[in-house]
């Protein structure tokens, strides 16, 4: 009996010690406030992302970057390597164990870095003394700044975060011709380049394709409707503003399909008539066999499908340049298929062009625990304003790994064979935010690339004109969900969306008792009920409230 008590006591002590052991802590509290560059010391540690394996030249680049920054700002730079695929967990691990890190390149999950106070607010650092370039440029570009719930800035984004809407059905001209539906000039009953179409037209085209080209040259079935995992017809045919950063649209502002104008009401996206119409049509097309049978489950992508001629028409963003790019890309390796030779697509717009703000995709953030936030901000500022540094970090050492192809334009470089092919390309660092830096692989036709880049320029101008002029009225509005609403949204995503969204998006749901795809007993009805049970209304209300308040503030 005594032994037993002794052992019980021992156990209790063991467990108590493990609980107390690391709860004890010497330093607490948060960092914050204005940092003073003159009081900080040491090198800035930057998290350096790789897309997979680490490049052998990274050490050299680190040394070169450090030397250059030492020259310009008086301190050095160190890289802390991580991988695009597990950077989020790596950052958490570093921060939890208090490792030295001053700048983190956050790829996904940036909100969690704000809500759990991993990231530091940056407003106090965006002063002309510390960040001469960014303090001027950032205030005018809300789409490139990551805002927190309190309205403070928490990150400087790398890619601009506006979503450009406006999609077209791009179909092969030769197939349209064979079906007798193509004409050079506008004609009744036929389609021409740039002609807007609707559901009825799509129906006609699909049926015609099925008739003239039921199988491809290899005997496989051709599917006219390219809806599948990753090719979202829904966004194209039911335009919206997500009003936030959720993965699926929930409570949205809608674009009126007739007028192309933005509405003013925050609604449950899935209860709108526009969405119901979509479900009906998709269901019909799926039932007619126009949709790939494995649309929900296959891991193949759009390129594979198109290249192997199982798709002849895809939905892409409306842009003549994008259309041309897709054509040229798909032209490679085309021997043995009926695409050999010329490929020409006909662009048939499905909706008006518009744009709205969403979450900046990739941001540079400064951790709260960083011991030298001012120096970190100085470095970030330099990164955004210094061409030499950008080329150094992105491509490596000039002359050893790359060289300028177009000195004048500066942003087109040729990268030597074997170097930095796996480094994660970070665009938009320098100069114009909308620019994605292009680099030429060794041995690839540089002339061609320059031509392509010119096209990209035209593309961004096109977007500038067409889509940015149709900005959502909620441009600049950030929705912040409190804890319980975040839980609700998560629940909706996990249970309802991941269960029904894709099924309905490819039209695979079952019909209801009245024979329609949205009638009683159908998958659509189940979906709506599930959403209601998961309390989507609370999200709609919450968002409408915050939006109204924000609008009122804007107008005042």
């Amino acid at each position, binding site marked *: 009996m005594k032994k037993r008590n002794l052992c019980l006591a021992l156990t209790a002590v063991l467990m108590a010690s493990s609980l107390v052991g*690391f709860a004890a802590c010497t330093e607490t509290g948060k960092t914050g406030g204005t940092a003073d560059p003159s009081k900080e010391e040491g090198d800035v540690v930057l998290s350096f992302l790789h897309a997979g394996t680490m490049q052998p030249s990274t050490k050299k680049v680190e040394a070169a970057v450090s030397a250059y920054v030492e020259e310009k700002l008086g301190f050095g730079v160190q890289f802390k390597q991580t991988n695009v695929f597990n950077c989020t967990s790596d950052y958490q691990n570093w921060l939890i164990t*208090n490792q030295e890190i001053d700048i983190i390149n956050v790829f996904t999950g940036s909100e969690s870095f704000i809500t759990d106070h991993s990231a530091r607010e940056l407003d106090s650092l965006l002063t002309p003394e510390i960040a001469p370039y960014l303090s001027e440029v950032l205030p005018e570009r809300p789409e490139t700044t990551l805002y927190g719930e309190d309205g403070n800035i928490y990150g400087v984004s790398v890619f601009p975060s506006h979503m450009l809407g406006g999609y077209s059905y791009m179909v092969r001209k030769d197939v349209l011709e064979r079906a007798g539906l193509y004409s050079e000039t506008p004609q009744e009953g036929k389609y021409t380049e740039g002609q807007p179409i609707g559901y009825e037209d799509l129906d006609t085209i699909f049926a015609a394709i099925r008739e003239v080209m039921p199988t491809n040259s290899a005997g496989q079935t051709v599917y006219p409707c390219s809806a599948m995992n990753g090719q979202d017809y829904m966004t194209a045919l039911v335009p919206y503003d997500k009003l936030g950063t959720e993965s699926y649209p929930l409570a949205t502002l809608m674009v009126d399909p007739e007028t192309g104008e933005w509405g003013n009401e925050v609604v449950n996206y899935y209860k709108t008539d526009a969405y119901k119409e979509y479900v009906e049509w998709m269901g019909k097309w799926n039932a007619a066999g126009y949709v790939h049978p494995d649309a929900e489950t296959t891991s193949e992508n759009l390129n594979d499908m198109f290249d192997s001629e199982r798709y002849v028409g895809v939905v892409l963003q409306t842009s003549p340049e994008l259309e041309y790019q897709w054509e040229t890309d798909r032209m490679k390796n085309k021997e043995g298929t009926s695409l050999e030779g010329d490929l020409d697509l006909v662009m048939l717009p499905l909706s008006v062009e518009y744009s709205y703000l969403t979450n900046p995709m990739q941001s540079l953030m400064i951790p709260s625990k960083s011991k030298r936030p001012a120096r970190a901000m100085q470095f970030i500022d330099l990164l955004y304003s210094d061409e030499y540094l950008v080329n150094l970090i992105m491509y490596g050492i000039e002359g050893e790994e790359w060289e300028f192809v177009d000195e004048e334009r500066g942003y087109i470089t040729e990268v030597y064979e074997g170097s930095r092919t796996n480094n994660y*390309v970070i665009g938009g660092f320098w100069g114009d935010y909308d620019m994605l830096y292009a680099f030429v692989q060794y041995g690839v036709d540089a002339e061609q690339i320059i031509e392509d880049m010119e096209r990209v320029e035209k593309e961004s101008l096109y977007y500038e004109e067409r889509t940015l002029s149709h900005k959502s009225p909620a441009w600049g509005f950030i929705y912040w969900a409190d804890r319980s609403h975040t839980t609700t949204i998560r629940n909706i995503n996990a249970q309802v969306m991941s269960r029904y969204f894709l099924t309905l998006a490819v039209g695979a749901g079952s019909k209801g008792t009245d024979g329609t795809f949205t009638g009683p007993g159908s998958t659509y009805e189940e979906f709506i009920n599930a959403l209601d049970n998961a309390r989507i209304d609370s999200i709609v209300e919450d968002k409408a409230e915050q939006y109204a308040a924000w609008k009122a503030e804007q107008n005042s």
Partner: protein
Amino acid sequence: MQAQAIKKRRMGKEGDSSGLKRENLGVKIVAHIVMIVAALLAIFPFIMMISSSITSEEALARYGYGLIPMEVSFDAYAYLFKAWSTIGKAYFITIATTLVGTLLHMLITTMMAFGLAWKKTPGRNIIMFLVVFTMLFNGGATATYVIYSTVFHLNNTFFGLIVPGMLMNAFGVMLFVMYFRSSVSGELMEAAELDGANMFTIYAAIYIPLALPLIATLSLSTAIGFWNDWNNSLYYISMEHQELYSIQRLLKEMQDSVDFIASNPDLGLSTENLPSASVQMAIAVIGILPILIAYPFFQKGFVAGISLGGVKE
């Protein structure tokens, strides 16, 4: 009496009544059929895996995965073996961790189980409960990482690969405890202790040899666990220390890199047609084959156990 006993024995030796013989034959046939079916079911996906790894990417895209490669192509392996020196180093690390880890694991587990199997160990029920408790409640990966990283500084060390989570688990301890308790007769134990024989000698000379089949099985499972582990590598080894990469970590990185390039064609990162799907299969094959090669050595453990235990072949 004696004559009758001898007669019975002789009958038993030769396989007496035809009924028993027929029954045994029936069971034998059933056994073989079951084994053949099981073997076919087991090997069918494996063959698919190998065949997909030597199929060209285009054929995979067109025809899907199949039993016979439509177009043979060793591109996937060529791509992987471009980095053959790194792969070689990673193999070395993985073999080292597997050997050292398995050895330590078996030592710690069997010694622990021995103590818990002995009826005279004070508090053995409590300790057993503590062991089983760990199977149920886990502090979580984060807390484990914090402890190992900040208190024991296992970051970027060899021990960081084998110590966290791998050196002993409740399952192994339980198995051995049950086995030890039931396999050695109580009288033998008592006699041995009364005699004053060292407990360690008893452990080494009696228990271990008796438990060889189980040791062989469990060390196989542990070795496979170490071989396939990339979690510890991911947490404790940073990218700057590639010399400590295990093969699974390295292959996963290569796979991620291929996937990334394949799924972001517009970033223009590479002009080659990266064989992403067949690379995945090739990686799986490279990961499994060494285990299959080493497996016969474990089978020898069975055989050794069999002959020592006196079971007839």
